[in-house]
């Protein structure tokens, strides 16, 4: 049984994206959720499925706040940053099989504030990434590796050495996201210019990654509502149908250092499945919302999805090809690199705006088919293909 086109995203909601929210994660998630539910033309009690993030809250807590008395579907996806995107597939499956009618997916965190605790401040709620503790604390940390930027740099460095990838390949990704952020009023880096020279001059964090290869740290929340296609027809906005979706996990998923082919990531497994369900080819899409915790991670995903051959990202991203007006506009909201970091759920809200035709200054002309990816937990991947 395929879930193709049987469900649609009908509501989106976001808080402001800031550095220093002064609010709890749950409070922000409920604001985003109320907005998404209202955007769907629904009331909170119409929701009967909830997929919260892996951490910070629980389905039960969100349901108790929202007044969802009959919660028929509650699941948590443990794929790190890929979780909110992978949750879309889970929602589509649950709804298409009749388990529930309308699913709320939300993610909120203090990605800036929680990293900078004030003295004496009690510890806040934390994310659940226990799957990584064995490898990181057991085998990487004694050698000075504990952060994603360092582990992904192992992949990036080997890629760079093997394929002689020029720095400008990832530079074009950073610059494109920044250019798009200038068009987005809710983008944190709006108005702050960054040229290729600025990118190349930015300081090293963990070679080969520079400061401008790294995403933002921000506080905020986003939410989306997914419902059955026949219900979607009667909602206030143009429904955005879920054509295909899949998740994938590299092997072994819990250790980044020992994979036979280090560039065979979660998306390498997921993409063919999602394309088959949607019955499209990867080059059919009108825009790309690719999880961009780091520019090099975007590169690995582009190659794994077959947008270009391995080692040929530079040819794909140059000459404005991934900028608005190019063939494959990337992260038209600015992405995690230049809008905000809400675990990529802002990639989904932007894809919905694009396919509704309400993306304002960053609208992709005649957008009909969009691609959204997630990445997390050392390379788990998810992909969602949307149409209007």
């Amino acid at each position, binding site marked *: 049984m395929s879930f193709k086109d049987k469900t649609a995203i009908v509501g989106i909601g976001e808080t402001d994206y800031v550095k220093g929210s002064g609010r709890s994660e749950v409070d922000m998630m409920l604001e985003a959720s109320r907005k998404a539910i209202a955007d769907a033309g629904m009331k909170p009690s119409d929701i009967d499925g909830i997929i919260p993030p892996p951490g910070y809250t629980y389905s039960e807590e969100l349901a108790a706040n929202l007044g969802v008395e009959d919660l028929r579907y509650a699941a948590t996806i443990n794929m790190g940053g890929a979780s909110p995107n992978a949750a879309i597939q889970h929602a589509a499956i649950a709804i298409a099989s009749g388990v529930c009618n309308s699913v709320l997916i939300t993610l909120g965190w203090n990605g800036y504030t929680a990293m900078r605790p004030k003295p004496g401040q009690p510890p806040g709620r934390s994310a659940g990434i226990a799957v990584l*503790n*064995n*490898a990181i*604390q*057991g*085998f*990487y*940390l*004694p*050698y*000075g*590796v*504990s*952060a994603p*930027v*360092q582990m992904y*740099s*192992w*992949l*990036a*460095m*080997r890629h760079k*050495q*093997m394929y002689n990838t020029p720095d400008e390949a990832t530079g074009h990704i950073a610059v494109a996201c920044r250019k798009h952020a200038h068009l987005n009023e809710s983008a944190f880096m709006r108005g702050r210019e960054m040229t290729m020279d600025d990118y190349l001059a930015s*300081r*090293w*964090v*963990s*070679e*080969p*990654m520079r400061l401008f290869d790294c995403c933002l740290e921000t506080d905020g929340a986003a939410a989306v509502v997914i419902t059955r296609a026949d219900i979607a027809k009667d909602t206030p906005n143009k429904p955005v149908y879920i054509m295909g979706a899949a998740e994938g996990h590299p092997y*072994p998923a819990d*250790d980044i*250092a*020992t994979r036979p082919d*280090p560039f065979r990531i979660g998306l390498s497994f997921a993409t063919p499945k999602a394309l088959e369900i949607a019955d499209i080819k990867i080059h059919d899409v009108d825009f790309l919302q690719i999880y961009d915790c780091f520019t090099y991670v975007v590169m690995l995903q582009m190659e794994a999805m077959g947008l270009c051959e391995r080692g040929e990202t530079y040819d794909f991203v140059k000459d404005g090809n991934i900028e608005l007006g190019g063939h494959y506009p990337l992260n038209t909201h600015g992405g995690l690199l230049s809008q905000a970091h809400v675990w990529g759920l802002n990639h989904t809200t932007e894809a919905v705006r694009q396919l509704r035709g309400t993306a304002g200054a960053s609208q992709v002309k005649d957008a009909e088919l969009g691609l959204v990816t997630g990445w997390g937990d050392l390379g788990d991947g998810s992909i969602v293909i949307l149409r209007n």
Partner: protein
Amino acid sequence: MSIIDPIELPVPYSVDEINREFWKLCSTHILHFQQCKGCGHWRHLPRYMCSKCGSPDWHWAPSSGKGVIFSWTTVHQPMHPAFGGKTPYASIIVEMEEGVRIVSQAPDLPIEDLKLDIPVEVYFEARTEDVTLPFFRVIE
């Protein structure tokens, strides 16, 4: 009560006994990895069964201690306070002759000389009284 505790370099945190055994064997100054008794397949990180043949039977087998550099990153911004005074430093992945890979450092190899496939061999250094870690040096 001390005013400031010195920040000590981290030691491996082991979630399970098989991980603790891996590190304990480092105090022999011979690097050991798990080897499957069913099919002879070498493995690392420590696991409970062989992913190749399915056998739950295994033993700790001595490694040749030799391998090549598979990848590295040169850290300029420390993410753990204990490494604050040590930047820049490189953390490497070594592919051993047995086919397994291990994360380590090659402190004597200048970071500007790092490249893929440099032959390296293991040596050991005590991090604390109880914990000995494997490191690597270039085979001349």
